[in-house]
Every structure is written in structure tokens, then in C-alpha cells.
């Protein structure tokens, strides 16, 4: 009997391995932000922040923040050497023009058609889409980063999203705390699973089409 334990760290660690040096990456607020902590030694990616910078650096020493230097979640940040600042039209020109290689975003629901819902629960949470619709529609590769299950126990990976979409058919990769999936051909294709879970366990507990690919393997991330 395998018991599910939510594990955000493993999601961040697996996503961090997707990138290669020089990739331009936008990490959404929340879980995706953790990815920056797990980039492999020597892999320098360029973090874009949609409020107007490239070269997003780590948080400043507490109390040393600059009121004019924040990330898209209003938290104080720093800029790395070689970074730069620009206005919002330039920022979204970068995003929509396909100059961001990867965006990793949080999830309310993601479905096997690559649809993503992550910005609105009608009647309950209507915060506005911010830059999410642009990031999902514009980035070259979209990574949905999410714990595999809701608190209720239902998988966030669906046959068809029920919530309002952030974008249609744009999600390329899904990384959860049970596995790493590619969205293609109307299914979630399992590329790696995280022990102690197994492909069979994942398929049983996810009401969606999950294909186990020939090269699929157990992840060496523990």
C-alpha cells in the first residue's frame, strides 16, 4: 500500500533539471518559484520576471531590499550582473514573441488536451489572470507544476478542465509529485515516475488518459 505524501520539493527539483544553460525561464509565483533553488551546478538560466526584468536574482538580505525592485508577486528581489530592466510592453513582447523558452506555472486543473486552468474559480476566487494567459500562450514550452492531488484526493490532471481556462492546448509538460508527463496526442505521456509511486498506481488514481511510454523510467530524484 503506497501512501501519497504531498512533496513540492521534488516537483521543483525535477523541473530544475529540464533547463540547459542560457535558457530564458519565467517561474510563476508560488511553487514554481522554488525551482530557482534547485538549478544544477553550472546551469545558469536567465530568469525573466514579467513586471520588467531579466536576470532575476535571489531575495535580498532581509531589510536590504529596494522598494523599486520587486518580482511579479511584489516580493523584494535582486538583479544579477548582465540583467536588465524594461517596461511592460517590452516584457510581454519578450513573452509573447516566443523569447521565453520555458514558463512554469501553478495549476488548478490541467487536462490531457493541454488545457490549463489556473486563474479563476467562479464565485469563489476571481483574482484576474495577470500575466498568466500571456505566459501560457506565448512561451515556447509551458510546464504545469503541481501537486498531483487536491486536498480532496482528486487528481488535478483531468480528462477535461471544468474551470475557466487560462489557455487552450498550450501545456507541453506536467510535473507533479508523482511523475513527469508530456502532454501529447490527447494524453498525458508518463516520462518518469517518482518512487514509491508506480505507473500503475498513477494510472489508477488519475481519471485521465495516461500513456506509459516505452522509455519511461523511475526518476533518480529521491
Amino acid at each position, binding site marked *: 500500500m503506497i501512501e501519497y505524501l504531498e512533496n513540492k520539493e521534488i516537483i521543483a527539483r525535477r523541473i530544475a533539471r529540464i533547463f540547459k544553460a542560457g535558457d530564458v525561464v519565467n517561474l510563476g509565483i508560488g511553487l514554481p518559484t522554488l525551482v530557482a533553488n534547485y538549478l544544477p551546478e553550472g546551469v545558469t538560466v536567465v530568469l525573466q*520576471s*514579467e*513586471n*520588467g*526584468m531579466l536576470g532575476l536574482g535571489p531575495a535580498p538580505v532581509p531589510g536590504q531590499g*529596494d*522598494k*523599486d*525592485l*520587486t*518580482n*511579479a*508577486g*511584489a516580493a523584494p528581489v535582486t*538583479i544579477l550582473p548582465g540583467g536588465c*530592466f*524594461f*517596461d*511592460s*510592453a517590452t*516584457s*510581454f513582447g519578450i*513573452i*509573447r514573441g516566443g523569447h521565453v523558452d520555458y514558463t512554469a506555472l501553478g495549476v488548478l486543473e490541467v487536462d490531457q488536451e493541454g*488545457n490549463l486552468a489556473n486563474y*479563476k474559480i467562479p464565485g469563489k*476566487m*476571481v*483574482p*484576474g*489572470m*495577470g*500575466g*498568466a*494567459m*500571456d505566459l501560457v*500562450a*506565448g512561451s515556447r514550452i509551458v510546464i504545469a507544476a503541481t501537486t498531483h492531488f487536491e486536498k480532496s484526493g482528486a487528481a488535478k490532471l483531468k480528462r477535461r478542465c471544468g474551470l*475557466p*481556462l*487560462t*489557455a*487552450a*492546448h498550450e501545456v507541453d509538460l506536467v510535473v507533479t509529485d508523482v511523475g513527469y508527463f508530456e502532454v501529447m496526442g490527447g494524453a498525458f505521456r508518463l516520462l518518469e515516475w517518482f518512487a514509491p509511486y508506480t505507473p500503475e498506481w498513477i494510472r489508477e488514481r488519475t481519471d485521465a488518459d495516461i500513456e506509459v511510454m516505452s522509455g519511461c523510467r523511475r526518476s533518480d530524484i529521491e
Partner: protein
Amino acid sequence: MNPIPIIDASSAAALVEEGMTLHVGGFLGCGSPDGILAALLARGTRGLTLVCNDTAIWGAKGGRSNGVAALVAKRQFSRVIASHIGTNPETQRQMNAGETEVVLVPQGTLAERVRAAGAGLGGVLTATGLGTEAADGKGKVTVGDRVFLLELPLPGDVALIKAKRADRAGNLQYSKTARNFNPLMASACALVIAEVEELVEIGEIDPEHVHTPSIFVDYLVMAGVK
């Protein structure tokens, strides 16, 4: 270049009239013209339409607030056009209660729509929002085998913006991520008022590094001066 007038925040607020469309720079309060906004709050002008990235941060019960949040809470806006209201629960409450009309626009689309107003475009085509509620009621244009949403310009009556530095002619430089929507708002409004922290003489800003050219700016307000 000719110097432009330097006015106080109250005089700036007095230029905003009931019913006007107001473009305000800032991203969750970072880069908003706090002095002018405080004066506009004090003045209480109502019936405004707000165009801003977000409705800033509103901490009820004495929590941290910034940017346009207090003006939203005081019901000075009858209409809000923004990409995000998630950090201002009062905006959501007013929207749900039908007290304030809130139009949510994807952030990049908002940026392009404001830029289009400033740059004299009749509209722009974008894929952002296709297949989502953001496409509802929008015109669609097919180019080759692709469908795009037609997004229209968003001009304003008055822009309230914040810059780090101005020369007396009104050339502006912003600071770090406090730049955000400020240059766009400056391009799209009939009247532009910039709150600045530093004032230098004409010729002291490097012409290679002007973020907003003087011709867009009508008035300067010194930040931190009552």
C-alpha cells in the same frame, strides 16, 4: 527644450475631473505615484475609470496597503480595467456586489492596448486569451490559417505616473522594476503628470538613456513634498 510646470500633488489631483479615464502606473504598488494618489484620495473625486495593471495591495484592518488600493476602497472608481485584483480583496467584493464594474484583461494585452493608444494603432491581433473567457465578446481576425483576437487601443484622459528622475523639460528616467506600465501610460493620455524623486537641469539626462521623452509629460510633482 522648454521647462514644464512643477505643481504640488493637490494641484495635480485637481486636474483629474469626475468621469475621466485615469491611467496609473505601478505594479502591485511598485512604481505608483503615491503623493498624487494620496491627494486624489483626499480630494475624493468619483466616477473615474481606472486603467492600471492591478488594484494594488489592500490590507484590510490596518494591514499594508499601497498604490491605488485606498481609492478603490473609497469607491472613487466606477470602472476598473486591470489584469489582476487578487491582492485587493475589496475590489473583488465590489465586483461581486455589483458596485464597481471590473474588466479583467491579460497583462500583455493590457500593455499592448495602452501602447496602441499611444502609438496611434487601430488595434493589435493577439493569440493571448483565445479559447478563454478573455475572448468573450471580442472581435476575431483570421490571418492565413490562424485566428487572433482583435484588441483595441485604450487611451486615457490623465496619466498619473511615477519616475525616479526628471529634467525640467520633463524627460524621465524610471528606477528598476518601478518602470513597468509607467512609460506606456505616459504615451496614451491627453494629460500626463509625473511624480518624481529627483529633478535635474535640462541637458543633465543622457539623451541615450531617456525612458520617456519630455514631449509626453505635461506636469511634474516632486515626491515627498506636501
